[in-house]
């Protein structure tokens, strides 16, 4: 059963300049993305900065209005709603409860003037989830669930470390019993020794509460660990999508391979980065190269790569890639 589905989803941000703020160009953050997530599934989205992974997540939750394409929301009772043009009053509350978000930086995402109790209470009250006199007990229960002490409810965010704050953000996101939580780089701002704690917590909560995740990260290892299915993005395009294990065993797109080769090896006797020479840097999304966006850096570049954009083709069941190498 699907929760969210997108068809040809596109997001351009206008660039305004001059006294009258005329639109002089666009940042082409996301081009024509087809995406869906099923109940109970974790879909990872991976790519470097500027690839459009956060834009995709934020467009899905309607923080951004899409430029083109469709977003379809499937409610719990089998109803389908086209939410591209905005959220209908009737489903707004339901959608907002169903889909929650955890942000990258727990130092920015918690209001410094609210106590932890208020931070977690707010969504519960907004959705009228439980009687008022039971909320405090529920907040205590949530804090324990994410590995914090119930006494912490009276404290303010600045009294906590990064890892603890991210636990609070997690508690807030699951407080309204969502079906889908979008995690946008939830561990990137954390120390290595704490990162694994949050990953384990998210995994536990998924099983306990039957949550789906869209897990956005630049870290391939963590995305692999969390996800059932992975989308690799480059300059606004999904260049490859496959099951997590399949993607790592048989990466098809040259960019996916380059990305994997660039992960440091943790073996000083075999320094793997010495052997890779991926040239160049991702081009500007204001003026993306024609054809395949990766062609200026691609070691397998062919004649047609700078002329025609490769379509997504299925090279194995559930494994798609957009590359002329794999298209007959």
């Amino acid at each position, binding site marked *: 059963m699907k929760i969210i589905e997108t068809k040809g989803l596109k997001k351009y941000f206008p660039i305004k300049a001059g006294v009258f703020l005329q639109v002089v160009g666009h940042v082409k953050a996301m081009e024509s993305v087809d995406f869906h997530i099923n109940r109970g599934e974790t879909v990872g989205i991976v790519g470097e900065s500027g690839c459009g992974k956060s834009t995709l997540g934020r467009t899905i939750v309607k923080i951004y209005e899409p430029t083109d394409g469709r977003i379809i929301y499937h409610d719990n009772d089998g109803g389908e709603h086209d939410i591209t043009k905005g959220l209908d009053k009737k489903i707004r509350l339901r959608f907002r409860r169903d889909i929650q978000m955890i942000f990258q930086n727990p130092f920015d995402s918690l209001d410094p003037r609210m106590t932890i109790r208020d931070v977690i209470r707010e969504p519960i009250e907004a959705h009228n989830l439980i009687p008022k006199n039971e909320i405090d007990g529920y907040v205590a229960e949530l804090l324990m669930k994410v590995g914090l002490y119930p006494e912490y409810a009276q404290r303010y965010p600045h009294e906590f470390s990064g890892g603890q704050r991210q636990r609070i953000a997690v508690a807030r996101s699951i407080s309204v019993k969502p079906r889908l939580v979008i995690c946008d780089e939830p561990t990137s701002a954390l*120390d*290595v020794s*704490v990162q694994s704690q949050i990953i384990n917590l998210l995994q536990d909560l998924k099983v306990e509460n039957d949550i789906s995740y869209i897990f956005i990260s630049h870290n391939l290892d963590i995305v692999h660990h969390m996800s059932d299915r992975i989308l690799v993005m480059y300059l606004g395009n999904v260049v490859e999508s496959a099951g997590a294990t399949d993607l790592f065993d048989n990466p098809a797109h040259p960019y996916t391979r380059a990305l994997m080769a660039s992960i*440091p090896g943790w073996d*000083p006797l075999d320094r*793997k980065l010495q052997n890779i020479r*991926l040239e160049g*840097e991702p081009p500007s999304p204001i003026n993306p190269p024609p054809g395949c966006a990766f062609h200026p850096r691609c070691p397998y570049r062919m004649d047609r790569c700078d002329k025609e954009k490769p379509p997504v083709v299925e090279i194995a069941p559930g494994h798609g890639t957009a590359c002329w190498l794999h298209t007959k």
Partner: protein
Amino acid sequence: MSGILEVKNLKTYFRTPDGLVKAVDDVSFELQKGEILALVGESGCGKSVTVQTIMGLIKVPPARVEGHILYREKDLVGLSNKEYKNIRGREISMIFQEPMSAFDPLYTIGYQLSEVAKAHMPWDDARTREEIISVLRKVNIPEPEKRYREYPHEMSGGMLQRIMIAMALITGPEIIIADEPTTALDVTIQAQVLNIMRDLQSEFNGSIIFITHDLGVVSEIADRVHVMYAGKIVEKAGVNELYKEAAHPYTKGLLNSRVKREFKGQKLPYIDGYVPRAYEFPEGCRFNPRCPHAMEICKKDPPEMLVSENHTAACWLYGEGGL
């Protein structure tokens, strides 16, 4: 190999409203000529303050700096600002984490590099320009003559980081201190920058202190590694030794925190608890509240103990009263 920089019992303390912060607490180490020494640790472990103290960037007072930093038979601790200027940027130069904010957006790249060169080198304008273009070429900047006239916003993060490396190299320093030089970069760009740094290091034959929290990066670039935790160095080892046989429980914990592929579907190993805040470091070994091997003696500060040749750990497991 011989030591070019020796840090002895260095202490950098800050007085804050929350209490005395012992950001660097009795740290000693030696930097050898021609080596890349990695200083590894999590946020707040004191790695950045250590190198800022070496660079003379800590204002005393309000901060308190004690101990010795010996460079060419000279103690840098207590050196006047004027004397420091002959060393900072000339003999010891620095690469910062955020290339986007390290450059002034109002001046061209060429201007900013020549500013450094003119402050330290006896070159005329033509020679300065020549040297800058040649060093830009060394760090693989395409069309350096054109880039010379451009502004920072016209360049990507990876390119600016390479230009910052060029800026650090222009005076031909003995020591380069790189503070998380690849943390703000994407992995494919990080790989490029690491390769450039290693290539240049063998060419200029100076020494590099490389600060990072990423043990993956360390394995790719370092010759020796010092691991810091809560203001102290807890382990010193050669890079191969460290990855093969880490001694300190904290180092082991960090190495185990790597997300390996075979862990899929299982719990990830982790270090219990959180990094303590700088004004409430625990008594004795500062890792003891999180340590799986904590013993009674750990309430006492552990000295540096020899694990094997050229490998030490500040942990009671390796000395009296230990296993």
